[in-house]
């Protein structure tokens, strides 16, 4: 006979929890700042899904509240704030990396300048990483200030919207990551280096892992209630990125939406001897990549798959690198994409100019 105890720990209820909170805890190895940004994105999306409309900004600051802060007295402590039910808008929130508990103060009476003044001058929090959530824009917007609101010129903007996860959306995010971070050296190395010796066109040995880490972080913000899984082991081998989430059509289950096979195309291997990679090896890697993307999609039951190449060679051949696999990939329904990673800023700028002239 079922009791409230056995029912509440029954499979149906546990599955509801697993679906409703897909991805919680899958970012334990990521920097606290990344967990914070994703946590705010999850909270904002849950509010949108609940249909909450508001004109008021919300500000989230990565600084756990002190229980007795003379600058910010009488805050309201709320638990599980990312459940979608906690009114977040119109408030300044102090939170930790998991963004599941926080203390807040009303700011709905302030305009945007007033919000900045309050956070920087009154609360003294201008140097802490902060996210501004603006629900009145279409789509709603997150503005991430990694160095705090006192350095407002350093800001990353992300749209928060209710949308289907599909390969086009995922590849769009990768495009942005490429433009902003991967295309040329200069990105922060918190997620790892890409080049061991850019003058010799030598990537680091595990450049795939660095690219993977950047993509995981980037994909977690527009799709915060999905789980971006890396290095999943399956019978065909080890797949690079998989996006899993609630089945938006059929309710209480999780499905695999997209699998990505990542390849780094190199001119030289890393290491002191810098041995060259032959064109034949590149051809083989790409062909194997198509096979892997297809096999992983079948094994995981994913809806879509792609081979994503990050070309770190001296010379960029564009999509010509796929000529030998184009038919096979089309037949296997594996999308092919390539992005060039330049070893220095000068080469990147020259490429941009050449592309602009070619278009004109």
């Amino acid at each position: 006979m079922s009791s409230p105890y056995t029912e509440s720990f029954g499979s149906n209820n546990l599955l509801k929890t697993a679906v409703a909170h897909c991805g919680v805890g899958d970012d334990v190895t990521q920097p606290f700042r990344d967990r914070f940004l994703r946590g705010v994105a999850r909270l904002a999306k849950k509010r949108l899904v609940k249909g909450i409309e508001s004109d008021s900004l919300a500000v989230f600051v990565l600084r756990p509240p002190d229980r007795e802060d003379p600058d910010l007295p009488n805050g309201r402590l709320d638990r599980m704030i990312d459940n979608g039910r906690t009114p977040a808008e119109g408030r300044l929130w102090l939170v930790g990396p998991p963004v599941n508990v926080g203390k807040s103060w009303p700011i709905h009476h302030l305009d945007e300048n007033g919000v900045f003044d309050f956070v920087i001058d009154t609360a003294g929090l201008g140097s802490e990483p902060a996210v501004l959530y603006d629900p009145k824009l279409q789509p709603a917007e997150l503005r991430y200030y990694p160095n705090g609101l006192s350095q407002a010129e350093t800001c990353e903007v992300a749209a928060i919207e209710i949308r289907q996860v599909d390969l086009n959306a995922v590849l769009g995010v990768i495009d942005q990551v490429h433009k902003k971070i991967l295309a040329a050296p200069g990105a922060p190395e918190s997620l790892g280096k890409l080049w061991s010796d850019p003058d010799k066109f030598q990537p680091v040995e595990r450049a795939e892992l660095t690219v993977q880490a950047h993509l995981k972080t980037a994909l977690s913000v527009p799709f915060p209630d999905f789980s971006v899984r890396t290095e999943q082991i399956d019978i065909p081998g080890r797949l690079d990125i998989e996006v899993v989430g609630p089945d938006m059509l059929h309710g209480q289950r999780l499905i695999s939406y997209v699998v990505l096979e990542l390849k780094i195309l190199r001119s030289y291997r890393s290491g002191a001897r810098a041995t060259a990679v032959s064109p034949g090896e590149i051809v083989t890697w790409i062909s194997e990549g198509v096979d892997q993307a297809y096999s992983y999609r079948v094994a995981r039951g994913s809806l879509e798959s792609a081979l994503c190449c990050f070309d770190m060679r001296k010379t960029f051949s564009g999509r010509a690198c796929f000529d030998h696999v184009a038919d096979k990939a089309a037949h296997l329904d594996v999308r092919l994409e390539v992005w060039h990673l330049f070893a220095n800023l000068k080469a990147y700028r020259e490429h941009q100019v050449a592309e602009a002239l070619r278009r004109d």
Partner: protein
Amino acid sequence: MSTRLATSGLRWIERRVRLVAILDALRYVGLSPANVITVHAMAYLADALAPVWDLPILDGQVLKRPQRPFFPMLQADLDRLVGQGAVRVSNVAYVEEPGGQLRIDADYAVNPEALSRIVETIMPFDEQARKWTFVREVVFAAAGLGPEGLNYVGLLDAAYSNPVIDTGEVIDIAPETGGENATAEVAHRFSRLVPQTMTLSSAELVHLYARHLYSRMQVV
């Protein structure tokens, strides 16, 4: 050091390191200084969920009290850490529990200098670093229950709230003494409910378990 710590004779070191890890993690979620109830609740959850990370349980047997766990040995460890200056105590009082017993009520926070020394000592050891990360994730996950939820964790948790065990009886979650750990069993079940191709990490199991306890708060 890791081999020596594995012996039960030095379990008290593990318990104190775990206490410091709990107090450190509570700083990150705004629950510091932490009330004594919060500390005991987190220590209990860290033990109950340890098998999810393939880690040993430090206190496998606990006397079931009306609404929350309380470990006399843990309290003694906490008091010793206060005496050593590693932990700061404030707002000390004594409150009467249902049943007439008195218990200490106080708030605890880790001394940052002591914390630095402890972290520097243990982090080079992979197993200790892993245990520290585990405790941090238990605290991060359970912080979402808020002080109120942690106050009533005994009514929410699978092992502690099992109606088969009466108040005043011993809850045994240690496998080596034949105990059944319903908490770890529930956490593991999440793995069996998601697609077979999706391998949930230990951290995800801990966080999902805490989310599920939150969902029980409405019911309980």
